[in-house]
C-alpha cells in the first residue's frame, strides 16, 4: 500500500486536523512503547515515552513538509535506536518500526486513508473499515504464527526448542543445518520417510481408483439409495478418527492385516476415498452428459467413452482429490499407530514419538520440510482448479 499511496491524490481539499494525526500517532506510539517497555520491565515509562516521542515526530515531520527525507530518516533512526537496544536483530526490528511510523504519519496527515473510500462515509464507518482489516490481519497472524515460529527454530544450533541469545542476535553460530543433517542421515528417520513414501502413494492410488468409480456411479440418477451409499462412503471423514482406528485395529487383527503394509495402505485408502468422492462429484456437476451420449452415438463403448471423453474433463477433480488423499495418508498418525506395527513406522509416527520421548529439533526440521511439501501440493491443487474452471468456461481468465 505504501508504494502506491505516493501517487494517489487525496480527495480535493481534504486535510485532517493536526490534532487528529498527532493524536492517533501518539496512540500507536503508546502501544508500541508499552510493548518495548514491557520487555525492559518498564511498561508505563515506555507507554508515556512512546506517545510523547511519536507525537513530537508526527508534528515535526509533517511541519517540515519533506516527506521522502522524513520517512527515510525514520527508518535510519529506528535502526540506530534498535541497534543500541538489541544489536542486529534490534536494528532490523527498529528499521521496520521506523518505516511503519513514517508511513503512518504521512498516511494520516495527508488524508490518504480516505483516498480509496467512497466520499460519503462517516468517520465512524472509516474507522470500522480499518478496524475490520486489522481484525482480519490479527486472525491471520494467529493462524500462521505457530507455523512461522517452527521454521527458524529448525535451524537452531542447540538441541532444544529454544531461541538462544545467539539466534536472537542473528549471529551465524546460533544457526546450523545439523537437524536437517540428522534427518537425512539418521536411519530411523530415513526408514520412516521410506515407509511414508511407500504407503502414501499406494493408498492414494487405491483411493483415487475407488473414489472416482464411486463418484461416477453415484452421479447416475438411476442408482438406488444414492444418498445412503454416499453417506456410508464419506463416513470415515465424519466419524472421529480414534473410533475408526480402534475399530480397524480389532478387525484387522482378526483377519491378519494388523501390522502389515497392506493393512496400513487399506486403512489410509479408506480415509482418502471421501476426499476423492467429494472433489470428483463436484467436478461431475459441471460435466455435460450430452458429451457421453454423443460419443455413444458415434459408436464408442462406455469404457472408451470414459477414458477419451469423460476422464480428461474431470481429471483436475480427480487429481485434487488424489492430492488430498495423499496428504491425509502422509500426515496421518492415529490410524497408523493402531493398524501399523513398529515395522511400518511412518514420518508422523516418528515425529510423534520423537516429540514425546526426546524433544529434538529434528522434528522441527521435518515439520518445515512437510510444510513446504504441503504448500507445493496445495498450490498444485489451486492451479488445477483454475484450469478446470477455465476448461468449463466458468471464468474468463
Amino acid at each position, binding site marked *: 500500500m505504501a508504494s502506491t499511496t505516493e501517487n494517489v491524490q487525496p480527495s480535493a481539499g481534504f486535510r485532517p486536523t493536526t490534532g487528529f494525526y498527532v493524536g492517533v500517532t501518539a496512540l500507536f506510539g503508546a502501544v508500541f512503547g508499552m510493548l518495548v517497555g514491557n520487555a525492559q520491565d518498564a511498561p508505563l515509562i515506555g507507554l508515556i515515552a512512546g506517545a510523547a516521542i511519536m507525537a513530537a515526530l508526527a508534528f515535526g515531520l509533517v511541519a517540515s513538509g519533506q516527506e521522502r527525507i522524513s520517512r527515510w530518516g525514520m527508518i535510519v533512526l529506528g535502526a540506530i535506536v534498535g541497534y543500541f537496544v538489541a544489536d542486529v536483530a534490534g536494528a532490523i526490528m527498529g528499521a521496520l518500526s521506523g518505516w511503519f511510523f513514517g508511513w503512518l504519519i504521512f498516511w494520516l496527515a495527508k488524508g490518504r486513508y480516505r483516498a480509496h473510500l467512497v466520499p460519503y462515509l462517516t468517520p465512524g464507518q472509516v474507522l470500522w473499515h480499518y478496524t475490520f482489516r486489522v481484525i482480519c490481519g490479527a486472525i491471520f497472524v494467529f493462524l500462521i504464527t505457530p507455523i512461522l515460529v517452527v521454521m527458524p527454530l529448525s535451524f537452531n544450533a*542447540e538441541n*532444544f526448542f529454544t531461541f538462544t541469545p545467539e539466534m536472537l542476535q542473528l549471529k551465524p553460530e546460533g544457526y546450523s543445518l545439523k537437524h536437517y543433517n540428522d534427518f537425512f542421515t539418521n536411519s530411523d528417520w530415513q526408514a520412516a520417510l521410506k515407509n511414508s513414501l511407500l504407503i502414501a502413494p499406494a493408498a492414494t492410488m487405491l483411493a483415487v481408483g475407488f473414489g472416482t468409480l464411486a463418484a461416477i456411479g453415484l452421479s447416475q440418477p438411476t442408482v438406488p439409495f444414492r444418498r445412503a451409499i454416499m453417506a456410508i462412503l464419506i463416513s470415515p471423514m465424519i466419524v472421529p478418527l480414534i473410533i475408526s482406528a480402534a475399530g480397524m485395529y480389532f478387525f484387522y487383527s482378526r483377519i491378519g492385516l494388523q501390522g502389515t503394509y497392506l493393512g496400513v495402505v487399506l486403512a489410509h485408502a479408506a480415509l482418502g476415498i471421501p476426499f476423492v468422492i467429494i472433489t470428483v462429484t463436484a467436478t461431475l456437476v459441471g460435466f455435460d452428459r450430452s458429451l457421453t451420449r454423443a460419443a455413444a452415438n458415434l459408436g464408442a463403448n462406455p469404457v472408451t467413452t470414459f477414458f477419451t471423453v469423460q476422464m480428461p474433463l474431470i481429471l483436475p477433480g480427480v487429481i485434487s482429490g488424489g492430492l488430498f488423499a495423499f496428504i491425509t495418508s502422509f500426515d496421518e498418525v492415529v490410524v497408523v499407530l493402531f493398524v501399523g506395527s513398529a515395522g511400518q513406522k511412518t514420518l508422523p509416527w516418528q515425529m510423534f514419538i520423537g516429540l*514425546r520421548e526426546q524433544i529434538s529439533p529434528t522434528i522441527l526440521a521435518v515439520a518445515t520440510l512437510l510444510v513446504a511439501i504441503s504448500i507445493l501440493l496445495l498450490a498444485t491443487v489451486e492451479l488445477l482448479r483454475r484450469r478446470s474452471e477455465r476448461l468449463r468456461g466458468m471464468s474468463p481468465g
Partner: protein
Amino acid sequence: MKLTKTLLASAAAVTGIAGLAYAQDMSNEMTIVSWGGAYQNSQQKAYVEPYVANNSGVSVTWDESSNEAVAKLRAMNEAGNITWDLVDVVAADAIRLCDEGLAMEVDFNEMLAEGDDGSSAEDDFGDLLVSDCFIPQIVYSTTAAYRADLLPDGAPAPDSICAMFDLETYPGKRALEKRPINNMEWALLCDGVAKDEIYDVLGTEEGQQQALDKLDTIKDQTVWWSAAAEPPQLLADGEVIMASSYNGRWFSAIEEQDQDFKMLWDAQVFDLDGWIIPAGLDEASLNRVKDFVRFATDTQRLADQAAYISYGPARASSAPLVGKHADLGIEMGPHMPTAPENSKNVFVYNYEFWADYRDDIDAKFQSWLAQ
C-alpha cells in the same frame, strides 16, 4: 530284543535330532519395545548391536511404546494378536502385567546367565527381583535439578527437595510429573512427616489429603509434565527454575548438551526398569527372545550400558565393571544414582504400597489437578 533296541536307539536319535532342530528353531525377527531417546540408544549400543554382530541374520525393530505398554498389551491380548517380543517397562507396570497374566513368569536361575563372580542369577539381582515376570536391567532415580542463574539474588543453593515447596525463598515456576507417585511422598516429607512413616500416613484418607494440601500450596506455580523429555526442555527454556526428572535425562542435558543445570540429589527416589516377555508368544519367537535376554542381561552387558547413560546396572556383579562414558570419556561412577556422594539421602520407593493404592490415589490426584 534286538528290534526293541534298534527302535529305542532310533527313537533316541529322532528325539535328539528333533531336540536339535527345536533348539535352532528361532525366529530371526524381534520387535523390542522401549522408551526411545538416550535410554533406548544405550540399549541399542550395549545389547542389540553386539547381539546382532554375533547372530547374523537377526533383525531387531524398535517400538517406542513403553509409555503405553500396559494398555497396548491389554488390547493385543484382547485382539489375540501379540506383535511384541520383548517389552521394557518400569517395575510397577511389570507387577500389574504379571498380575493380569499378560507377562510370562520367568525362572530366573534357569533363564539368566550366572554372574561373572559365579553367583547365581537370583543372588546377583538380589532384592531387585520384585516380580516373577520382571527381569531388571537398571536402577534409575527420579530427582530434581535447578538453574542457579534463575534463582533470586542471594538465595542459598537449594540442598533439599523441600526447596520445591518453598515459594518464598525460590519464587518461580517448577515442573513436576503429572502423577501422584513421588510427588505425594515428597509433599509429606516436606510437611514434616518422618521418612519411615510416610507410607503409613499415605495409606490413610487424611494422609492423602495432607499431601494434596501441601501440593496445593505450589499448584499454580507448577507445570505438570508427562514425558521425561519435557523437564530438561522447560529448564533450558527458563520456563521453570527447578524440575523433577530421571537422573539419566539430567546427565544427558548437563554433560552431553552442556546445559548449566545443577542436580539436587536429595530425597531421590530409586526405581527399576527392566524386561518382561509378553505371555503367549509362539515357540520360535520365544526361543529367540530367551536367547537374547540371556545375553543382554549378563554381567558385562549391563556394565556396558552404563557407558552410555548414567543408570546403575541391576546386577551386583556389574558394578565393579562400570567404566567411562563412551563418547565423553568421563568416569560414570560419580554420576550414578547409587554413588555414595549422591545417595546420602535416598527415599525408598514402596512397590507394594503403590500396587495396592495406585488406582485410588491416581483418581484423587487427577481430580485434584482438575479442580
